[in-house]
């Protein structure tokens, strides 16, 4: 499903964020990415939905070779992947409803379907009453949940979440984790970068630990931690 072979990523300012990454993630897996601040977790994630291009190496997603992907095929890739961005990336002038609906509009869903799906997913993240607010009227945790809602609204095959609980209190975090577990049990692959020791150690899944741009540990049912 997701395969990285000898992937290196050096940003244009010379910072090497990933070096020699080899990873194979199967359909339906649930993977935590852990590691210290600045280790390369977000970069690892950005490569998968092609926000960044690898400097070298091969990335295959669903047998699409990202290196050979034409520009006009990128939207098709991204529609298969729901992303929770670390900095939310909400459209500031659109209401919460419109922000989430956008992910369905791009795949030309009929209005009626859009309405139903958006309200369902808002219910799921507990923000039904905020549908008409704009992002700047929301608290940090509320914005994060909108980003989560947008990522899962079109039932993508893969959900990639970059610290989706960073701005959430423990209770709300657990609710979100339950949602992720639900959609994972329906066959969706979930990749989640996180700093939450509690979540990783309680909800045992595969753990990939990145430190200083390299994978230092990759184990099923792993614990939080990235020291070798």
């Amino acid at each position, binding site marked *: 499903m997701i395969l990285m072979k000898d992937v290196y990523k050096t940003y244009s300012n010379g910072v090497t964020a990933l070096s020699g990454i080899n990873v194979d993630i199967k359909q339906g897996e649930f993977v935590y990415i852990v590691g210290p601040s600045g280790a390369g977790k977000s970069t690892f994630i950005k490569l998968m939905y092609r926000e960044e291009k690898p400097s070298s190496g091969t990335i295959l997603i669903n047998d699409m070779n990202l290196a050979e992907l034409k520009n*006009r095929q990128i*939207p098709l890739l991204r529609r298969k992947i729901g992303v929770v*961005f670390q900095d939310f990336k*909400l*459209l500031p*002038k659109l209401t919460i409803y419109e922000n989430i609906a*956008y992910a369905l509009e*791009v*795949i*030309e869903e009929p209005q009626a379907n859009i309405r139903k799906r958006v309200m369902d997913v808002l219910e799921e993240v507990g923000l039904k009453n905020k549908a008409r607010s704009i992002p700047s009227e929301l608290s940090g945790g509320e914005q994060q949940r909108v980003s989560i809602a947008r990522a899962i609204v079109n039932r993508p095959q893969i959900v990639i979440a970059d610290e989706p609980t960073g701005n959430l209190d423990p209770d709300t975090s657990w609710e979100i984790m339950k949602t992720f577990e639900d959609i994972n049990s329906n066959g969706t692959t979930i990749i989640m970068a996180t700093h939450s020791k509690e979540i990783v150690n309680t909800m045992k899944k595969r753990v990939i630990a990145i430190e200083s741009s390299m994978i230092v540990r990759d184990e099923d049912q792993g614990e939080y931690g990235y020291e070798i």
Partner: protein
Amino acid sequence: MKFRTLMRHIRVGCRNIIRNGWMTIASIGAVTTTLILVSVFLALVLNLNEIAKNIENDVEIKTLVELGTSEEEVIALGKQLEEIDGVEAVTFSSNDEELQGLIDSMGEEGETWELFEQDNPLNHAFVVRAEVPQDTEKIAKEIQSFDNINKVVFGKDVVKQLFEFNNYARVIGIALIVALVFTAIFLISNTIKITIIARSTEIGIMKLVGATNGFIRWPFFIEGLLLGVLGSFIPIAIVLGGYYYLDSAVIDTISFSFVELLPFNPFAWQLSLLVLAIGAIIGVWGSVMSIRKYLKV
């Protein structure tokens, strides 16, 4: 593209116009002012051009017939003149008429000359008018080669100067208009570009959640169109209103015979349509061009 998606784009384009508030007002303001400039100028230059034409049309060639030419020969000469290529009208003026004209034109001082009425020293004359004023000189030369011609007179220097001046003025006018239209294009698309730079982050987010370039571009297309159209309303109102006022009220009080404006209908309407078209085209073009940069990858 599905029909409902097209409708969605139109809806979103209109919505953005409303939500962008200040940016929209600033953009429409830029479109409005530049189009006012363009339209006032177009009206001015086109009318001046018309006036210049009227002045040129007043130019005539005076052909003096040799003294002692017989009546038949004079008539034949008239025919010959009428047959010249590019001649619009030929008018005969006998030597008596010529003298009277001279006396009249001299006012009281002319009275002195009345004594010549018995023994008119003047020639018969033909007044020839060219179809195209610029042909005047050519026709005059041709007439010179005819028989029984005493002299061919036309305000050679004056006419030449006038034509030259008019030609310069016309070239300058057209150059100004072209420059102005390009300026307008630049300023409008420049303004739109800035508003789009300000929205580049948003465009980036749209791409990240799976929107194709076309999907992103369409609402901007609609928005640009609306900006252009909305921005051309005030200029059109000014063109129609101002021109109507000028055409009906002011011109009556100006007393130059050669000043005659292009008729309100259809000129003002055509100009309005042109302004609308310029606004719409530049609006669309400006916004579509400007997002291109942000749509790459």
